[in-house]
Each structure stands twice: as C-alpha cells, then as structure tokens.
C-alpha cells in the first residue's frame, strides 16, 4: 500500500462482491454447459453433465446468500437514483461514449453502476425464483414451469452481457478502478475523476481514510 491512497471499500464489501462474482461465474459456466450440447464437455472434469447439474444447484445456494448481502449492503448507495445530477449524468452517458467537457460529479456510485446494480439485483432475484421452480417443477402447472425456463434464459442473456461490460469497465476501460475491489485502496486522482462528489462528502464528514495518515476523523477506521 502506498501513502496517500484512499480507502474506497471495506473488506466486508469486497468479500461479498467476490462471493457474488465467483458464484455467478460458476453458475454461468455450469449453466452454459447444460445449455449448449457443444459445451456439455464442461462437465467432463467433474464426472459428467450430471455433476454440472449438482454444481449449478449447490452454487445457487451461495449465490442466494451473496445476493442477499449484496442487496442489503448496497441498495441505499447503489439502488437509489438522486435527481437531478444522475439524470444529467445519464444525458451525457457519463462521458463514456462521446466527449463531454464537464461530466456531472457523482457520489459513491454513478448512474451506470446503479443500473448495473439494479440489473444484477432484479436479474438475480428473477434467476433465483425461476431456478427454484425449475428445480421443483413436479407440482406446478407445466405452463408456468415453461415460463420460468424462458425467464431463466432471458435473465442469462442480460447477466452474461452485463458481466462483460462490468469486466471491461472494472479493468482496462477505467484504469484505477480495479484496486477498489482488490485491496480497497484507490488513488486520489482516480477518486476525484470518478466519484468527485463522494470524495467531497467524505472530506466534509471527516470519514476519509487515507493510508499512512494516522488521524483522519473520529468515524474513520483503518482497514
């Protein structure tokens, strides 16, 4: 860790994030293995496609847990849009798509991240709900079960695509972002560029945690 870095996430956030990410990835891969005959071989290392089914179903339990913590921990910060600044940000696409002289300053999460959060939350709930019915379909009218398969597939379309957007913007698309989820410490210029409002808020409230600076505030805690 370098002096002057600022803490963006605490360890609980990072653990929850990676639990969700890893379980989601395993679900995507094992799901793909069952979705496409040409990918059936993904089950081979585990002893066949049936093992993939068990892996999928058991991982789903971890996913449910991780999603629960994700939503309860972030919905206040990432699930609520603040007007008008979020709208202004959306109007200029956050400066991601074309040149914008002055991108509106955002807090801890920008509207793009908020949308991502909402898709993950809503999509995740839809996947859990439809998946549970697919797992126990025998006493439910076939019409409804079929609909669940459709929802599960539609949810996958959204989540799979969003996964790559997230991967891109969390790494090469926005250099400096990745440490926020790895070590939790980010650089001040990055924070100023990406979440200027949040930086100001933390400074005002004295909650800013700067590496190597002993005293930051009464609320501050070192990770």
């Amino acid at each position: 860790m370098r002096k002057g870095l600022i803490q963006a996430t605490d360890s609980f956030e990072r653990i929850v994030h990676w639990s969700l990410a890893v379980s989601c990835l395993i679900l995507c891969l094992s799901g793909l293995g069952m979705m496409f005959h040409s990918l059936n071989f993904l089950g081979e290392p585990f002893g066949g496609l049936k093992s993939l089914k068990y892996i999928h179903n058991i991982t789903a339990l971890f996913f449910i847990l991780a999603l629960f913590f994700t939503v309860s921990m972030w919905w206040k910060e990432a699930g609520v849009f603040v007007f008008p600044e979020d709208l202004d940000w959306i109007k200029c696409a956050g400066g991601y798509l074309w040149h914008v002289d002055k991108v509106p300053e955002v807090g801890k999460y920008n509207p793009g991240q908020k949308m991502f959060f909402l898709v993950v939350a809503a999509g995740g709930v839809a996947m859990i709900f439809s998946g549970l019915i697919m797992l126990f379909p025998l006493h439910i009218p076939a019409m409804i079960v079929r609909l669940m398969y459709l929802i599960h597939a539609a949810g996958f379309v959204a989540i799979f695509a969003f996964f790559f957007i997230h991967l891109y913007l969390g790494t090469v698309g926005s250099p400096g972002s990745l440490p926020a989820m790895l070590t939790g410490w980010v650089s001040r210029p990055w924070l100023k560029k990406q979440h200027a409002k949040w930086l100001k808020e933390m400074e005002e409230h004295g909650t800013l945690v700067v590496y190597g600076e002993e005293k930051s505030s009464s609320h501050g805690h070192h990770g």
Partner: protein
Amino acid sequence: MAEYVKLIDVSKCTGCRGCQLACKQWNAQPAKQTENHGTYQNPPDLQANTWTLIRFQEIEEKDGKLKWLFRKDGCMHCTDAACVKVCPSGALYVTDIGTVGLNRDLCIGCKECISACPFDIPRYDRKTDKVYKCDLCLSRIKADLIPACAKACPTGAITFGEKGKMIEKAYARAKELGGDASVYGDKFVGGTHVMYVLDEKPGVYEHLPKSPSVPLSVILWKDIMKPLSLLAAGGVIAGSFLHYIIHGPKLPDEETGQEQKGGE
C-alpha cells in the same frame, strides 16, 4: 431408414390392458401397489415405471346410454419433439426411424422434458434421478420385431408399420367408422409416430390435447434466447473493444505532483 408408425385404433380396444402388461414385461418394469380410485383404470396415471396405460373414461351418449372409452396413452413420438429440443444432455434423441429414443445413461434428471412435452408424457423417478418414457421398443424394432404392445394386443387395435401405409390405413378405417371418427397425429408437431383412429371427436378424450404444439415458450427459449445470449455477449465484447480503441479508457486527470508516476 424408413419412418415407422404405431397406429392405435381405439374403436377396437376392449380395455384388456394386455399392452400395458406386455410393456412392463419387455422393459422389465415392476408394478406398484395402487389404490382403487373408483375406476378400472389402474395405475391412475403414467409413472416412471408405467410407460403406457389404458385410460378408462365414461361418457354419456345421445340416447342417454353410457359408453366406455379406452385410450392407450403414452409417448406420441413427435417429429418436432419438444422434449428433444429442450433436453440438455442429448439423452432424448430422434432415432433414424423417426421415433424419439431415450438414452438413460445420459439423462441428468433435470426434468426439462417434463414441462416441455405437450402430451405430458415423461415421468421422473427420484430414486434414480432420471426420466422415463416409452421408446417404442427400439431394441425390438432393431431386431425386426414389432413393439411389445402391438404384439400383445389381442384385438388388432395396435398395429405397427411403415409410416405412409399406416396413415393410409388410418384414414381408411376412419372413413369406415364414419360419424365423428377421425385420424389423430399426422397434422401437428410435424406428425407423430404414434397415431390414433378416434371414434369420438378428439376433444372428448381426457388428457388428449386437441391441437398440441411445441410450446411457444420453448421456441422462444431455445430459438431466440439461446442464440441471443451469445450474440449479446459477443456484441458487448466487440463493443468494449471498439470503445477502447475509438473513445479510449476513462483516465484520471493527472495531478501536478505526487500521483503521476504511479501509473495505476
């Protein structure tokens, strides 16, 4: 190979259930103790170990007399088989005589076929975590024998033969019967390989869909969503790449002084 069809002429069926038993015997499926439900139909429904079943049904005729309907239920061996379309493991497959086979070693017990089948045929067994259904005695047909049920039927209600001939035979028989008699099976799901000659209108028979089809949700799921998932992901990856080389990543503004050399 030529396509084959099993024709069930319900007007000739006496409800003896010889076919039901022959099926159990050939496929070595044990019987299960059942309870009397106030009908001769037994067992009450298709089961993981009962792949064909005579459905008993009482209807009232115009003159007030009671009539008994017997219909041998079981897999229809659809040409456009919804079960094959959804089966993730390839356990369900179309055989070279047009029937739908089931390779139980491959079945992973996901039950997707159960909700997809428009005829409500596949049955799940918890003990083996697999699904079961009639395979039209594929092993017998390959050995040049007719299906066990057709062999056992004492009245000639079940016959088996080359597809074109059986369809001809079915229409001739329906014409002979006259009245409400009709042929069931050649007009939907691409044509089934189990067909009926029904002497009542199709809607009269319990558990028999009037115009079955591959469910719309199955088509949307398999033909639209499945390719779309790859397309969307591919589009996003391509889009990200284009974004990177055209617009470029979003970099922090360099501040004079301390942070420059870091190059995060």
